């Protein structure tokens, strides 16, 4: 039985709370949030112990691992405290607001042999995992280009402000939607080494960008376009799509559908042409479902690693912390204004 604590009851925090509480091999020993309303609401009608102070929760409930789902600006302080106390950490994305903090966290985790896993849940989505498998197996040949896009209807008109409308708090489309897509690109095709022609576009927000456009250059030599907007009313919910071009074939993939085309010159006749498969073909069963298998799968993966002492997850800070480096590159590049 793994003892887990949780800090922060926002949208992701509540989702983690339900998954952890439903998970048979996890004992959710404490949840901390600064909101009296939420502490009361969940505390009164469930048996989950609630705390107003996360340090008190860690001291008194003594979990083996802590899920942190607070606004990004607080991640570094809270995560370093947890690591100092010897706790494994599941940290919501993005990791930190600057790469220096992320690197410091990674160093702390490595020195203490603790796992820090980041909540980029696309890494646990069936169709994207299949894309990674195809690319790693060389099925598309050498990759030379890609387009990575995500759209959704978060800010579709001017509205009152929250922490999400302040860059210093981790608000804006870059830290939110775009970080997922950047992370997905590195998961599928390897590290990003540079960015050019970045535009952080305000559509409706005053303080932060609502859209992110850039060209990404990978270690492998491939390059591709990034186009992300959370101000797209035409999409019912966040929709991420990636198109990848290789010398042996190409593919298009979203959370539901994977379409692969194998070229004639490099493939045996029975393999050539289109192959379409669906989420149903690539999704492992989970014990408890809330909003998508990938949310349960990532918690499951983390908890199993905590139980076995394994500190190298596909979403550990060693890999997914690098997204913060790319976010910094994009901000710097955008400041050049295309010069």
């Amino acid at each position, binding site marked *: 039985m793994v003892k887990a604590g949780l800090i922060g009851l926002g949208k992701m925090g509540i989702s983690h709370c339900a998954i952890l509480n439903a998970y048979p091999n996890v004992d959710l020993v404490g949840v901390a949030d600064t909101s009296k309303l939420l502490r009361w609401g969940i505390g009164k009608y469930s048996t989950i112990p609630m705390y107003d102070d996360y340090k008190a929760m860690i001291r008194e409930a003594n979990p083996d691992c802590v899920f942190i789902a607070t606004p990004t600006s607080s991640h570094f302080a809270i995560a370093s405290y947890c690591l100092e106390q010897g706790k494994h950490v599941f940290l919501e994305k993005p990791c930190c607001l600057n790469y220096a903090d992320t690197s410091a966290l990674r160093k702390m985790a490595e020195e203490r042999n603790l796992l820090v896993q980041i909540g980029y849940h696309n890494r646990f989505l069936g169709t994207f995992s299949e894309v990674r498998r195809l690319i790693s197996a060389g099925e598309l040949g050498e990759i030379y280009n890609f387009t990575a896009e995500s759209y959704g209807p978060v800010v579709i008109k001017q509205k009152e402000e929250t922490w999400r409308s302040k860059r210093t708090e981790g608000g804006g489309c870059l830290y939110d939607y775009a970080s997922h897509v950047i992370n997905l690109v590195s998961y599928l095709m390897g590290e990003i080494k540079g960015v050019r022609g970045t535009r952080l576009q305000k559509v409706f927000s005053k303080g932060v960008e609502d859209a992110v456009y850039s060209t990404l250059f990978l270690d492998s030599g491939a390059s591709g376009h990034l186009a992300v907007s959370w101000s797209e009313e035409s999409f019912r919910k966040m929709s991420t799509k990636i198109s990848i071009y290789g010398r042996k074939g190409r593919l298009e993939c979203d959370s*539901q559908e994977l379409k692969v085309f194998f070229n004639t010159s490099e493939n045996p006749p029975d393999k050539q042409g289109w192959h379409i498969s669906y989420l149903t073909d690539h999704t492992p069963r989970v014990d*408890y479902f809330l909003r998508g298998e990938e949310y349960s799968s990532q918690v499951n993966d983390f908890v199993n690693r905590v139980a076995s002492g394994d500190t190298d997850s596909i979403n550990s800070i060693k890999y997914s912390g690098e997204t913060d480096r790319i976010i910094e590159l994009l901000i710097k590049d955008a400041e050049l204004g295309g010069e």
Partner: protein
Amino acid sequence: MDRVIFGDNQFFGVDHLSEENARKKAQRFKDTREIIKVLDAAHEVGIRTFMCTTYARIAEITEHFKSDPAKYQDWKFYPCMPYAHKYANAVTELGIGGALNHFTGGSVMGGLLKGGMAVVQRDAFKMMQLMVDAELQMFKGVSAPVIFLQNVVTDLLIGLGMEEFFVEFEKYLKKKYNAEAGFITMNLPLTTRRLQAAGISKPIVCASLNKIGFRMTGSMEENKQVLAESGVRGIAMQVYAAGAIKPREAMDYACSLKGVESILFGASSKAHIEETYNLINELST
């Protein structure tokens, strides 16, 4: 409950397999009259129950059914609330406090400021009732004998262990609307056990039930057993597993499950509706 229940995903840009298909349907059904045509086709075929999310546009549809009471006298709506994306996007944008404020007309934060926690605590169930009333506004004057909680809400509350809300929800529907509560879930065995432990002995539970286990939690055997032995009144949805199973094979499985009272499906053409309706009836005898 009727053996066949007609669903609404096809009308509102939902397609579990393909966003392109979803878009084509969204375009066609932008005109509510197109939805009504399909519902009329379902009515002609013999379907009498329409399960639908509480989107704003449902109001236009209920108007149509009220316009000819004689023709539609045995037509039933099964409303499913709340329309979750509306709330999820608001939470991302406004935070949980801001979203609650937005949807309750400021009563949460207003209550906190005026009377402190005591006011909000006393009124927590009242707040749930206000939200239920708001969502059911559109169904005034039509028959809505079973009212469902969407899976996001059911599964969240099940995960958090807050079953007391289900009991209050059920009581309130009975008292104010003379309706039964239904629960949509992706976790049939867990939800059924928890509802029964909370005192809802024969819960109406609508869940993914298909031959390949898509969007099903717990083992296939466990699902089968809970349906057959627990007293749950099951509604099978996602019977085709988002298109992965061929119609006859899919319906053959769903119809064979003991404890499944109804089968939910959606379609956009009369021929397809008729074919599916006949198939379910054929396999149910």
